[in-house]
């Protein structure tokens, strides 16, 4: 199998003020509305979409978007809108929507429909993510009851999967959704359904759900691969316990990456933007992070609780570039340095998909492209073959586009040409 590299853009707001951390309570949920400038957003959205399209040209296997609400580091409440634009203007990369918080759609069947549209539009390039959703998005912004969120999520999943796989019109009598006529129209190109990715933040129940259904489990945290190893080890132990194949395709990981000509140049170019991300974008009021009932008892018992201590609210540390690089939060440096650490990361975590966070915080466009191009040309090729040919089922976790799909070079030329009038009289 080849390792899949997905260029991911969180779409952060680039203008959070210098005193954001001291003068504002939270980057998420109740972020100050006056910080958003819609006219500025016109340029920001296009810049970010241009970068995603550039990543397709650079040869990344996928381009990725996700869903957040009322969030200063993710101005993408509807990733499907962005994905639709990308599907039109790219032709190679998988369109990775990681994903739609399925319990938030009313009815969740909407996700089956929109993802089917995206799969058709992109010619079968969709990778479909089904996150449970963070408490900030799901509970505090979208008002879902924490203790019932998971149950609602599983029900939404069942509805969507049946909508994709049941060829007949059927009735769905759920606790949260009742539909008399479910009839997904359009249907996805990829059969029986697009590959499913479950982004997880550390809820251990999610592992079994992924393994029972053979979905990819992707650990999306910003804490880097060294901190992520404990959790991924737990996941792979569970894979072994359930006697599933150990294919790296079962797992993905999000990693912040900064590539430059030299290690020193990486610090010089990128450190201010990484610090912007960690010190401003991740400034979330801790009361929004864990509404009672959202995490299960099992997860609490396995987890860390330091964030809830009063003294740790005051002691919230200001991270430095050195902390970020040494702690593995950021893989940064020359192509050689980055390749070496990426190889270590991929092997340690045993992952088949890497969500490459190459734009972070308030990074300007030129730096983003510079880092991405160096990575694509000098790092990525040497990493693709890490897992060799050992795993026969490895490609089960990636999209399978149709060969003769419509490509932008065709449609864009056609769109600009006035069609010839038909010969003869028109009825």
């Amino acid at each position, binding site marked *: 199998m080849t390792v899949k590299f997905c260029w991911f853009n969180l779409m952060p707001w680039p203008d959070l003020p210098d005193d954001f951390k001291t003068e504002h309570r939270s980057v998420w949920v109740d972020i100050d509305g006056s910080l958003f400038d819609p006219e500025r957003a016109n340029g920001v959205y296009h810049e970010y979409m241009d970068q995603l399209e550039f990543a397709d040209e650079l040869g990344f296997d996928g381009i990725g978007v996700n869903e957040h609400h009322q969030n200063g580091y993710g101005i993408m409440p509807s990733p499907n809108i962005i994905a639709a634009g990308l599907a039109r203007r790219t032709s190679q990369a998988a369109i990775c929507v990681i994903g739609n918080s399925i319990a938030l759609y009313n009815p969740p069947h909407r996700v089956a429909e929109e993802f089917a549209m995206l799969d058709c539009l992109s010619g079968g390039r969709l990778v479909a993510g089904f996150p449970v959703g963070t408490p900030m998005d799901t509970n505090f912004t979208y008002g879902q009851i924490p203790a*019932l969120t998971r149950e609602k999520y599983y029900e939404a999943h069942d509805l969507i999967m049946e909508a994709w796989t049941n060829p007949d019109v059927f009735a769905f009598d759920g606790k949260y959704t009742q539909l008399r006529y479910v009839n997904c129209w359009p249907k996805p190109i990829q059969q029986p359904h697009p590959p499913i990715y479950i982004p997880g933040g550390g809820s251990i129940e999610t592992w079994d759900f992924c393994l029972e259904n053979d979905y990819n489990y992707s650990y999306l945290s910003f804490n880097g691969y060294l901190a992520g190893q404990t959790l991924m080890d737990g996941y792979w132990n569970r894979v072994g316990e359930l006697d599933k194949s150990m294919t790296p395709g079962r797992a993905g990981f999000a990693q912040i990456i900064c590539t430059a000509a030299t290690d020193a140049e990486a610090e010089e170019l990128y450190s201010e933007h990484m610090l912007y991300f960690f010190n401003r974008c991740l400034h979330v009021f801790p009361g929004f992070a864990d509404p009672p009932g959202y995490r299960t008892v099992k997860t609490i018992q396995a987890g860390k609780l330091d964030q809830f201590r009063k003294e740790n609210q005051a002691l919230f540390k200001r991270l430095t570039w050195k902390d970020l690089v040494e702690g593995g939060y950021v893989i940064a440096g020359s192509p050689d340095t980055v390749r070496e650490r990426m190889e270590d990361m991929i092997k340690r975590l045993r992952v088949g998909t890497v969500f490459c966070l190459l734009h972070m915080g308030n990074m300007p466009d030129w730096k983003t492209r510079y880092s991405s191009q160096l990575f694509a040309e000098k790092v990525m090729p040497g990493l693709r073959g890490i897992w060799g040919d050992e795993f026969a089922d490895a490609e089960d976790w990636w999209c399978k586009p149709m060969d003769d799909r419509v490509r932008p070079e065709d449609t864009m030329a056609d769109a600009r040409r006035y069609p010839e009038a038909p010969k003869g009289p028109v009825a």
Partner: protein
Amino acid sequence: MSATDTAPAPAFEEVVITTRRSVTAPVRVYEPAGGASSGAATVLALHGAGGWLGDEPVLAGLAGAGLRVVAPVWPAWSEHTDEDRLSDMQDFALHGWDVATEMGLLGGEGASNGAAGGGLHLMGHSMGGMIAAEMAALAPQSVARMALLCPAGMWLGDHPIPDIFAMLPYQLAEVLFADPNVGEEVLTGGADFSDNETLTRFMVARARQQGMAGKILFPIPNRRFSERAYRVTVPTLLVWGRQDRLIPPAYADAWQAALPDATVELVDGAGHMLPYEQSAAVVAAVTSHLTS
């Protein structure tokens, strides 16, 4: 925030029941001062989202004033883990009646409230008040009188209720108590949260109990009771702390306006945790209302 054992004999006996819905949970019974066979009226008392704390001075006080108090521990507030069987407001209200049935408080020998001329008295604090009110709306003919202590269940746009679900544990006392220093002690029982095991136990209890409370209180503690309030024709006393910073006294007026037969009593020196801050005043007001 669970009941703690104290050295002196508790003022109540605890029985464990299983309802017909197969929910198992303990029930506290406070026998009246005159003794179990005195034919005293019975009060079904429902706790708030904090659960029963210690011996509950108000419940003991009502028993001391001659009332029999039956006080179920709501699912999730005990070690029994049947809370998944209850999902919404209707489930909660029916569970209250299921407990009353299981405890023999409805019909049959020893079930009637002689003093009140039949029917059961209901009392509830905060979330418990919300449930009691819904029970009364479902089956007003089974209720004699009702006392609600700063109940949840309404939402006034001009008086938004602070979001307890987004509060860190150490922020609660400030909102819940007129005197936050007293509150800290009542809420934590003096537990040391620098100890990881204590903190984990606390967080698990919080997840279960407040997660359960969230089924009727999150994200807005309003399940449209006001549309059913017209059914609650029983005489109802609303007791409110003047310093209630969670559900401010403006809500007392809203409840009084919504209920056909309600009176309000405001208590000084009390916040939302009024049964713990001014228990004697609460006992006096509730006793007077239920025995009048």
